[in-house]
């Protein structure tokens, strides 16, 4: 089996969000970048587990980004994977990422592709589905469990107020979230091994060059006007405010 895991670089969850004075771009100074948590904890770790279960599995990682994404890719390789690819493009949209990855998939051939549920910066939740659509493969989104018996994949996915369990054959694209696996901390051996694993840079395909969207500007949400504190013992006042002022009950 040949597995591809899509790895994206995002600002750390606790990063201070600020924009350039013209409000056009995200201010990266002083921001620490991490592997998108869903990609690292769930997609990658589950793929590494599958490789442990089926040792002849080939596991590749891919990111679409500039050279500054390579440390992230190396860190991912320290958790697992045989080789990594970086498509040299700074994407701003979902389809640019998906088109770049699809071109590589068509060239290299895979049986199974894992993405994260969403990137925590753009929150698109779209790359997995778009990629599956380009490849015309079945797609299971927001998976909380994935098992493979050598023939059939059993996938559990979240739905409103419950979950669905379905079966699919490969090839398959799955977007992963909590439940798929437990976070792993890379060990020293993994970190050393990652330094020498192949990392190949690919040119972005022409169809991925032009984004379908343009970002006009960003803004921070208006500051809350401050909390209205109610004395303990005066809960009836809170109920009144929720009814009369906020009108939510």
């Amino acid at each position, binding site marked *: 089996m040949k597995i591809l895991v899509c790895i994206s670089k995002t600002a750390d969850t606790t990063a201070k969000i600020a924009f350039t004075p013209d409000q056009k771009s995200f201010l990266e100074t002083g921001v620490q970048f991490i592997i998108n948590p869903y990609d690292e904890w769930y997609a990658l770790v589950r793929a590494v587990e599958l490789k442990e279960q089926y040792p002849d599995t080939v596991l590749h990682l891919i990111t679409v980004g500039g050279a500054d994404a390579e440390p992230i890719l190396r860190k991912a390789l320290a958790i697992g994977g045989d080789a990594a690819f970086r498509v040299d493009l700074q994407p701003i949209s979902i389809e640019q990422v998906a088109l770049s990855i699809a071109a590589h998939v068509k060239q290299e051939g895979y049986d199974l592709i894992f993405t994260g549920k969403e990137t925590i910066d753009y929150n698109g939740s*779209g*790359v997995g*589905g*778009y990629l599956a659509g380009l490849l015309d493969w079945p*797609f299971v989104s927001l998976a909380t469990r994935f098992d493979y018996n050598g023939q059939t994949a059993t996938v559990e996915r979240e739905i409103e*107020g419950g979950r669905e*369990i379905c079966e699919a054959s490969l090839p398959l694209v799955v977007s992963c979230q*909590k439940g798929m696996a437990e976070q792993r901390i890379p060990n020293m051996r993994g970190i050393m091994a990652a330094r020498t694993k192949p990392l190949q840079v690919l040119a972005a395909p022409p169809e991925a060059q032009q984004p379908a969207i343009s970002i006009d500007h960003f803004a921070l949400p208006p500051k809350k006007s401050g909390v209205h504190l109610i004395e303990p013992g005066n809960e009836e006042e809170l*109920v009144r405010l929720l009814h009369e002022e906020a009108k939510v*009950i």
Partner: protein
Amino acid sequence: MAIFVFADQHQGTFKKAALETLFYASQLASSRQQEVVAVVMGEINQPRALADLGKYGARRVLHVDAAWLNDFDARLYALVLKEMLNQYAADRCLMPHDFNGRALAPYLAAQWQAGLLTGIVSLPDDKDCYQKQVFSGKATAWIKLQTERQVLTLLPNTFTPQPGDSQAQVERWQPTQVSAQQKRIQLKEVQTTQGRVPLTEASIIVSGGRGLKGPENWGMIEQLAEVLGAATACSRPVADAGWRPHHEHVGQTGLTVRPNLYIAIGISGAIQHLAGVNGSKYIVVINKDPEAPFFQAADYGIVGDAFEVVPRLIEAIKKYKGIS
């Protein structure tokens, strides 16, 4: 030209987010003198429900009445939608940014060669830009789609429908290029988690954190939720410790929720927790520590011991609602 909306249903009951999207589409359409077409997949056991989509703004309903479409499958649904959109020479298709919409919209956009914008929270402005939350709700981006064909997903609980009394014209529609043979995913089992309201659809959520000390203390949380008709949620350590089921975990790594009212009890308000709840319209925080960061994101707060405040709050709500 019409605006198409995927109206997701389960056994004849339309998802709340689907009705919101129809309503949103009707707002979008009225400024452009367009009409709204609702697309319904799979068999329906309450045919009335179809025409009733008119109340939410659908002028027409195209019903793909086929048993092989009863279970959601992103690929099959996208192929059917693509055929339909092509046949009607449509240029715009909307759906909710919910579990199914997040799978179907990108799949459709790829197949139909449309631009994709997910998780929008506004109507387009005069520059044709839509607002979308980015950085897990910590900022907003104004984004414009450059393509003629567009697939858009709307964040749930952003628009509140005001149902009218129109009825939609219902038609059956059958695909000719897609069939049951193309099905590659088989649904085996559906497990519904018990609870009053699914978290993602709840308009009120009562949420508990580590400050509640242990699972045995959730009785009052359940009771508060009960009197409010709310759903229950929790912080991540609470789910990790097994005090509450995992599907209740909200935040960066759990569910993102946008209720009208979020009541946080014994939760400190870590940035990762806020990321999942900061879209709530109103936030109430009950915490014994006046320095808890959650108070900065709150609209109303009570600094006090949850074990004293919550029972009194339950009584106050019962009194207000006239429940004895």
